[in-house]
């Protein structure tokens, strides 16, 4: 499998490590009420679907970017690769 790194172009999957569901980006705010429940849901209730999935990948043997890879877990087709930091910054502004 190859991942089309937004900065470096297509790179072999062996350069990356995977963390899983990109939901891990949405860490609960510490000031939220019912923190324990929010963190429990954040940490343990993650998706693992058949089909399209947004995943976190780390370019460990490369430029050490964390990427959000939109991948079909059945066909391994990758439709989108983004820098995680850009996505988080953009979402932060949207809020």
């Amino acid at each position, binding site marked *: 499998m190859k991942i089309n790194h937004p900065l470096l172009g297509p790179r072999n999957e062996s350069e990356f490590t995977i963390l899983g569901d990109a939901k891990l980006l949405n860490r609960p705010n510490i000031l939220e009420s019912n*923190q324990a429940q929010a963190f429990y849901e954040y940490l343990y209730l993650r998706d693992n679907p058949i089909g399209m999935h947004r995943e976190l990948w780390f370019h460990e043997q490369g430029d050490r970017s964390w990427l959000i890879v939109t991948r079909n877990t059945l066909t391994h087709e990758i439709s989108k690769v983004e820098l995680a*930091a850009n996505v988080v910054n953009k979402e932060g502004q949207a809020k």
Partner: protein
Amino acid sequence: MSQKNRIDGGLIDRQSTLNFTFDDHHYTGFKGDTLASALLANNITLVGRSFKYHRPRGILTSGSSEPNALVELIKGSTKEPNSRATTIKLFDELKAKSQNCWPSLKYDVQSINDCFAPFLTAGFYYKTFMWPKSFWEKVYEPLIRRAAGLGELVSLPDPDHYDRGYRHCDLLIIGAGAAGLMAGLVAGRQGLNIIIAEEDFLFGGRLLGENEEINGMHCHDWIENVVNELKAMPHVRLMAKTAVFGVFDQQTYYALERFTDQIDTIGPRQIIWEINSKHVILASGATERHIAFGNNDRPGVMLASAMRDYTNRFAVRPASRVAVFTNNDSGWLTARDLDKKGIEVTAIIDVRSEYEHQKIAKKYPNIPVYSQDQIIKVHGYNRVKAITLLNGAKIHVDGIAVSGGWNPSIHLTCQHRQRPTWNDAISGFVANEASLPSGMKVAGAAKGTYTTKMVLQDGLNQANIVLSELGHASSKMHTPSANDDTYHGKTFWSVKETKQRAWIDFQNDVTTKDIRLAVQEGFYSVEHVKRYTTLGMATDQGKTSSVIGIGIIAETMNKSIQETGTTIFRAPYVPIAIGALGGPHSGKHFRPTRETPSHQFARENNAKFVETGAWLRSQYFPDKNESHWRESVNREVLGTRNNVGVTDVSTLGKIDVQGKDAAAFLDKVYCNTISTLNMQRCRYGIMLREDGIVMDDGTVAHIANNHFIVTTTTANAVQVYRHMEFCRQCLWPEMDVALISITEQWAQYAIAGPKSRHLLEKIIDNDHDISNTHFPYMACDEISICNGIRARLFRLSFSGEMAYELAVPARYGDALIRHIHEIGKTFNLTPYGTEALGVMRIEKGHAAGNELNGQTTAGDLGLGKMVSKKKDSIGNVLSEREGLTDPMRLVLVGVMPCDSKHKITSGSHIFANNLACIPDNDLGYISSMAYSPMLNSYIGLAMLRNGTDRFGEKLRAVNLLQNQDIAIKITSPHFYDPKGERLRG
């Protein structure tokens, strides 16, 4: 007599005679032979024994679909079992042995199994070895294991080496037969970068075994011209002996190149290539299948196409009196070609009616034809002697050419769970064009196109399509003139009138009866029948047999073949040696070895090394007069505690953290507060995982404004860095902070002991004051040593002594350890290794890897107060979960044997006296132990249920594996200098 079956012609080099042995007999062959053709040339037709019944078996095919002719290749002290004689290119001094027979190929003891055939039917193992249960392990399994398996492995390491490579091209062509070569020629002339991968050692595919004309010349000459033209093109790479075995994601293909095979020892034996190509033309051709009839497994029965291969390509007479048994036109070609070479063809037996085969029969007036007839029985044991036909006629022959039709080689089109489609016109499965792997096109016989002319045309067409997809002009080439006789065949699987067993899968001994029995017993799915009968499960993966099996299942169940379907296709298409998959990554090359900056020095000083992850660290430095490692370790501990010691701590992970928000960021990743840390000071820090468990510990040094250096444990360096980057990029990207791992950029030595300051003062430059007042415990600074060399000094102590860690750029590491050693002589400096380091940390009660084991919280380690509740940090919230704050959790304590002579063992579990050693009574376990030369006793750290309330209690350390039950007393984990006076001295 030498090579008595050799005839004229063929693609062999009669000038190069090659010697080889088979079962210790000497023979000769020619360059261009396979082992199979050379054996046939020497009139060897019996080559092996079958798996279950040990029936005598000959050569069935001429290529990689061979189920029978499996031999052991022997090279020096090693041998490779299950090598297909039909694919081994003959080389000088080749040694091969038949397998699955004892005492000899001709007289095999286990062939007695054949007499018990009625009991060895489908599902034999499932039915027979059910009872009694107790017999399974001691009787049945050893019995089966001895009888089962083909060939024998050698337990010595593989002496060959293997490699792995990567290639990229515009177009990958799989198979270099008529379609592949034509496509290559078309695309090559238009300038595409092409790889043509061919499994055989010669290019040409099916044409190599044919005797026909292309463009007015013999097809062998046409091949030679095309291959020469392709070879001259710098953008075309021809890869012979290269089988593409797998289709993977995003147009990635894997191929096995048998690079040197057993021919010589220069270069790797096999190479696995990853080939990346957006466009692929699959021109893998088709393989012939046989027909199931009585005793159709006797040596001398051969696929009709294989007979043509041996005659036309290898110039070998496969038999002297041949009957052809066919259900299609291509069987007749064999009769024609054998006849041309002067080999007697006594009969063509065609299951079709005269009307059905009339078109082809017109061209063969001289051979007796038996229409609508079948072979019901083969006579002979080690060799075919005669056949009996349905009409009662008995014909004396020593060879039978069988053609049951052709199976397009569609394996690579179906590896992503595609299902092929049954095509009645050619009586074979073809790829479903709508679900091909992305970028793949199928050309020629692989999609059921069977006349030479049409195959060439298809190769041309598919290449033109690729050219236009890539934006190139299409070729103006015309299809060469070639044979354009239409192909006709009739679906026919087995001779039902046969009373003898009729073989489908030769290698696993599956007969038509087995399939029918399986269906009768309720196995309706083709996947189930396969597993119940082992059809197609041998090393040939059913290349000749599985479609026949499917046909018979369909017949038996009265279903269509499409409804019956195929089993799932999975990579690899050809057998791959485990060594090839490993490639160069074996033994020490499995992963790189990381050596510390002081490695060379340590070796010169007789160090014993220990692997910690990829690192090799000095474990201890034995003196000449020390015979036991503990003597060395005790000396190193005492030397450090009494004078001064030095050890390499470069393996600790070091991460450089810089930026305006560096302190705020570290507050997030450490559970304790970092932002209050003054400049030029260090602090011990704990990182939690988000679930509240301790991830790692280390020190944070505020070395300059907005500049921190944090350390991690050796084992967790990679994970901690990954985690910190996750925090930085994914959680708080708005923070102004940058991280970089500097583990390998800095060499770092711990200098510990009461004389450490005096020693250091002789190394660092004069303008730095490291007196206790100016440079107290937990101070750090950027300094210079040895007249201006940049260095960093940290006053940290893992040993509990007054200690410093001195870091220099890694290139000075070797010089520095030698310098420290030289200066240290006047202070009685002792170099120490990881063992002494471990002893001293246990004496001090520091938690390390054994305690930071992914189960412990900060509270468990006695560090609960460090988790600051005034700020957000990773793991903060969930560390307060009920289960993690339970007062009954296991917490860190010290343990000592009541009798100091007793040794305690890590992993021992702790029980109260007089209570049974069962899980319900388990109080905890000993996580680390060492012999303490300071206390003259074994000491240990343990995780103990409400342990802090148990100081002074006497309990038992029980190790059931070593039959130990030792009285211990529970203490504080801080055995040595509990108030920490020494490290502040």
